[in-house]
């Protein structure tokens, strides 16, 4: 029977003593850490410094913090220009606006501008997409970015990261500063259970196996990783689920994913995003060509969000451990039929 992977160094008492934290706090901490290590790191914000936590960087490095006002399109291209002049630039806003509003500016002035850069001449713009997903809650559909991972994943050369908790977001933010070229980091507003510890491995482009299992692979990112672990725990006596934390949607860790599907023979994807275009899209596109197995998707089913409390919305939109359990049962049944 599968267990929590000891190599993942997850928090002890993961299920019994839930400790919640804001993923965006990790962004704030990561920015400060990156700022301390690299004197050319600067942070831009479009009038959302408190809620994106870029304020934490501002307090520490006021001279390297640039307020651009409500102008996300300008922010993206300014960052491109600053990067061309030698800076590593983080741009911060709600995901609904950046990359929601400024997609073309990111495409042309960041991603394509970076395409085929000689080493050392990359366009080093790192994008923090805050308040993503429906767990923004009461703000409603306009602010609930559900398409951003898909948008960013379509751009050649872009790296797309959806951390599972505050600690991983901090690691991802720091890693983004060290990694050449454009990176998108996506996180939510609400508090989520902390899963990882300082010792939990994190490498951009590398899936981390959080739980071993042989009957079904649950591949998740963001807040759905915890839900996946809960689902696996609840199912453990009947179905042995492997849980993969796929924080990097692009580039996809195809090697680890292929090994997983060969072993378990069926997959459930889980993400706080449209069920097309994001993690599910990436997994389906790869697995269908490499080693076709049943894949069921837990995500937002091609609709807009609405106002409500985060926990309430996660239930209504089918993004809980219970929804994952249902999908796992279906996936295993499909596997048996084939």
């Amino acid at each position, binding site marked *: 029977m599968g267990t929590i992977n000891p190599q993942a160094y997850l928090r002890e008492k993961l299920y019994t003593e839930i400790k919640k934290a804001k993923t965006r706090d990790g962004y704030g901490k990561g920015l400060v850490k990156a700022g301390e290590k690299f004197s050319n790191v*600067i942070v831009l914000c479009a009038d959302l410094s408190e809620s994106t936590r870029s304020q934490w960087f501002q307090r520490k490095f006021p*001279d*390297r913090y*640039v307020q*651009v*006002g409500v*102008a996300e*399109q*300008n922010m*993206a*291209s*300014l*960052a*491109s*220009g*600053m*990067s*061309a*002049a*030698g*800076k590593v630039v983080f741009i911060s806003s709600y995901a609904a606006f950046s990359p929601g509003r400024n997609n*073309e*500016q990111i495409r*042309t*002035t960041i991603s*394509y*501008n*970076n*395409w*085929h*850069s*000689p080493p050392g*001449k990359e366009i080093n713009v790192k994008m923090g997409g805050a308040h993503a997903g429906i767990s923004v809650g009461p703000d409603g559909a306009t602010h609930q970015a559900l398409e951003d991972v898909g948008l960013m994943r379509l751009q050649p050369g872009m790296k797309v990261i959806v951390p599972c908790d505050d600690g991983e977001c901090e690691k991802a933010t720091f890693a983004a500063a060290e990694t050449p070229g454009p990176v998108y980091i996506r996180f939510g507003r609400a508090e989520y259970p902390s899963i990882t510890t300082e010792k939990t491995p994190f490498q951009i482009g590398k899936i981390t196996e959080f739980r071993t299992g042989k009957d079904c692979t649950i591949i998740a990112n963001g807040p759905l990783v915890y839900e996946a672990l809960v689902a696996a725990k609840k199912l453990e006596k009947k179905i042995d689920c492997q849980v993969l934390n796929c924080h990097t949607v692009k580039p996809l860790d195809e090697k680890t994913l292929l090994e997983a599907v060969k072993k378990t023979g069926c997959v459930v994807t889980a993400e706080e995003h449209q069920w097309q275009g994001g993690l599910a899209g990436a997994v389906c596109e790869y697995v269908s060509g490499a080693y076709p197995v049943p894949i069921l998707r837990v995500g937002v089913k091609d609709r807009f969000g609405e106002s409500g409390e985060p926990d309430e919305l996660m239930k209504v939109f089918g993004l809980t451990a219970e929804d994952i359990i249902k999908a796992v049962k279906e996936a295993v049944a499909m596997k048996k039929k084939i």
Partner: protein
Amino acid sequence: MDIHPIVKITDIKKLKLLANLIRQDIIASLVAAGSGHSAGPLGMADVFTALYFNVLRHNPKFPFWEERDRFVLSNGHICPGLYATLANANYFPKKELLTLRKFGTRLQGHPHRTALPGLETTSGPLGSGLSQAAGMAYALQMDKKKSRVYCMMSDGEQEAGQTWEAAMFAGKNKLRNLTGILDRNNIQIDGHTEEIMPLEPLKEKYEAFNWHVIEVDAHNIQHVINACEEAQTIYEKPTLIIAHNIPGKGVSFMENDFEWHGKPPTAEQGKIALAELEVFRKKIEKGVD
């Protein structure tokens, strides 16, 4: 290693001859390409010449020289003018101009930063260049660099909201090392700018955004150089040079006709255009232009 900028050309007759040569190269590359924009590159040929042979501190042997001035072409569609200028400044072999827009070329239909030495940005979608230039100017000021940033924009892209977001940012941050050059030729692809979307009063608009504004005849190379020098004396503000020009300048059947905004000459039209430019070159030589 000590890198020095190329020596400025101050002889106006030499600069006029270079501008004429650049116009001829623009025509040749457009004929070879079979598509592309004619009016804009011809209209700005004198400004390109002033910039690359007098104003800019740059060195084609070291395109990544850190102390260089930056030139950002926001209206990427007039890149045949920039390409012809870069080739004449020895950034790449002139014969490559005939590969414009063809498969495998470094001279993409709209410029791509990493494709060709000397390009500072990728551009084409309008309205993003001033933001990138302002970003460069901001970062260079942070690092106390002396480099200046020049950003050429079309008048049509003054219709794009992002241009004004960038103008506001540059004004707020007193980007004295940023000079905008507005290719004011009054045409855009669908017709005359003031019919498509009235832009005037442009000078007052930029002044209201805390810019210093200079208006020049873009075909008077000395005046263009003077305006760029004046911009360097303005300490508190970015400067905008409104470069009034005749689209298609130098080719009689293209001048002031918006139909020539987005199309190339045919081989036959190209011959006529080159003949006209050659006549004009002789006049410059004789000092009777």
